[in-house]
């Protein structure tokens, strides 16, 4: 006999497809914010499913800090080609060159905070009214209160205390000129769900997620990859380790973990046994207890 209920991954998938279709129906010019990380890859995969047999009706937008893993860029370009989608790149380097933002100074300088200006500029110049992100509520405490459809004012800012109530599956995407929305189709997914889904759907992801040998340094409690952008102090030492990344971002701040998980089965097993959150290796979240909320208010992802 047929069972008339869904297992939880099917239910999450169906919910995400519903959200993506709502975005398409309610907005004029939505894009997927594509970082090359697993969450935005999953969102892109879901968009493909949501509109099949039509092509993905969204452009992919990449906010490029200029400090990339080369593997991520290649992955992005291959995927764009496969989907036949349009790529929009917002360049942090250009924002710096134009004097829109100034580079941070010192050893722990990153371009993380600078991305916000580039993102908002790209949203404005491309007349984007909804940016679809791979944000999940389990990632971080400020994100736990995000809506599926999240309003941004005409300065691109999030007002967490004055969010529109979101009931049932009735999403309100109405906005005034100059405002925009962020949409989060995988809000209700956890890191474990994302990995189980990648495995089930056999979704290709950048090789960086699998254990590999890499030159790294130990900084702020995780293995930071060696790159041309990294400034070492005299006590830091470059070593070669077998590592993999749990999240992918700017190469200067994305920490890896030591691991032997070189295939999806092993990754799922490893994640299930993890005792630290994935963002625990992200220097950007460690700046203060409310680092994520403060950046999100400004208009961050």
């Amino acid at each position, binding site marked *: 006999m047929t069972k008339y209920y*869904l297992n939880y991954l099917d239910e999450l998938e169906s919910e995400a497809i519903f959200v993506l279709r709502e975005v398409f129906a309610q907005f004029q010019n939505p894009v997927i914010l594509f970082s090359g990380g697993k969450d935005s890859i999953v969102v892109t995969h879901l968009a493909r499913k949501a509109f099949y047999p039509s092509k993905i009706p969204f452009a992919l937008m990449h906010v490029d800090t200029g400090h990339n893993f080369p593997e991520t860029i290649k992955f992005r370009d291959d995927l764009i080609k496969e989907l036949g989608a349009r790529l929009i790149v917002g360049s942090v380097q250009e924002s710096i060159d134009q004097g829109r933002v100034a580079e941070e100074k010192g050893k722990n300088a990153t371009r993380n905070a600078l991305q916000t200006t580039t993102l908002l500029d790209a949203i404005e110049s491309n007349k984007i009214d909804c940016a679809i992100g791979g944000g999940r509520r*389990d990632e971080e*405490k400020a994100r*736990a209160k995000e809506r599926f459809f999240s309003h941004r004012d005409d300065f691109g800012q999030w007002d967490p205390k004055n969010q529109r109530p*979101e009931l*049932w599956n009735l999403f309100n995407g109405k906005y005034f000129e100059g405002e925009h929305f962020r949409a989060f189709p995988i*809000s209700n997914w956890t890191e474990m769900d994302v990995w189980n889904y990648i495995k089930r759907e056999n979704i290709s992801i950048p090789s960086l997620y699998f254990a590999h040998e890499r030159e790294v340094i130990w900084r702020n409690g995780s293995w930071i990859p060696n790159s041309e952008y990294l400034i070492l102090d005299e006590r830091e030492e470059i070593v070669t380790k077998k590592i993999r990344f749990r999240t992918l971002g700017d190469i200067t701040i994305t920490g890896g973990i030591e691991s032997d998980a070189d295939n999806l089965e092993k990754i799922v097993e490893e994640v299930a046994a993890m005792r630290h959150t994935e963002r625990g290796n992200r220097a950007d979240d460690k700046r203060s207890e409310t680092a994520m909320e403060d950046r999100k208010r400004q208009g961050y992802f």
Partner: protein
Amino acid sequence: MTIDNNQLLRFTTAGSVDDGKSTLIGRLLYDSKSIFEDQIEAVENTSKKKGHEGVDLALFTDGLRDEREQGITIDVAYRYFTTPKRKFIIADTPGHIQYTRNMVTGASTANAAIILVDARHGVIEQTKRHAFIASLLQIPHIIVCINKMDLVEFNEDAYNKVIGQFEEFSSKLLVKDIRFIPISALLGDNVVNRSENMNWYQGAPLLATLETLHISSDTNKVDARFPVQTVLRPQSEGFIDYRGYAGRIASGVFRKGDEISVLPSGFTSKIKSIDTFDTELEEAFAPMSVSITLEDDIDISRGDMIVRSNNKPEALQDIEVMLCWLNNSPAKPRAKYAIRHTSNEQTAMIKEIIYKIDINTLERNAEDKEIAMNDICKVKIRTTKPIMIDSYRDNRATGSIILVDESTNETVAAGMVV
């Protein structure tokens, strides 16, 4: 890990800081090993800074800066945890009267509600309010946790007294499934692990209860309703004439070959195929997202609803609704609002306020005609065009509406069709 049969259960927790709600959620996450070491570390640091002894479990659930400073939960926060039996989503909402709107929001998608009662104080106005909202939003399962049993010497009489009080007032509510569990969130009794202090309690602890609730009947599988979200017309090779109606089945089951009607036009046809990216299906049910093609070429667009021809919702322009007002600015009599019902949007007007409910006494008030933030009232609404309505009690998906004020674009009210 097997994921094939694991279902998703969404539950809401209503209560104030004093009830120990945040402590309960913290306990549930902590004892089910759903909290990571770096989160525990962060909470230990904050607990120390604030001068608490040990780990303040409540800190696991407080999110935003203002809340952490004031020590209250001001918005709905979502939490996740998984056990080998189920995946859980918690909608954590504040319990004070001024946050009724957040409780309603959290309750709107929940399978179950946890209502916390302080064993020392028994059923108070707030308890009644929470139970009322749970019944108003038709949450299928209610679990009353009688908390702080440690402060009444784990006494069975204290527990029975609360049950008596609850049964007395809840007989007026529309609740299908209600259970009582004596717990101590602070010490962990009957949350994840069975209490050794209350051998007189023979029922299951809270987590085991949540893991075994029968939830697959929570979604209506009888009345087939398919609100069209968008039309897929690829016009690409192999799909030149493809015209798929994309949407998520709101309720019921659709099968290939079913005789269907398209509302509001009333045109009829048969289902030619039910498609997904992966495969073509023989049948599909709520809440699956699919794309449906029909035998005949009919003009269908977003906002239309496909239903089985022998079971149709009512097409109405005048509807009676239990309305919860969510906005700071009060309702404007006879003003126009955008009304959203499934994927359909129309213009609507509140024609009449029938009565308002005093949310503390649950008494009706037919005199007071002002609707302000957090008010719950029964109203008559008129829409510019008919909408395809089921009663909320029969169908949460097609019996719910929101109102949007187009001068601010804010969602100002949520309504349940009577």
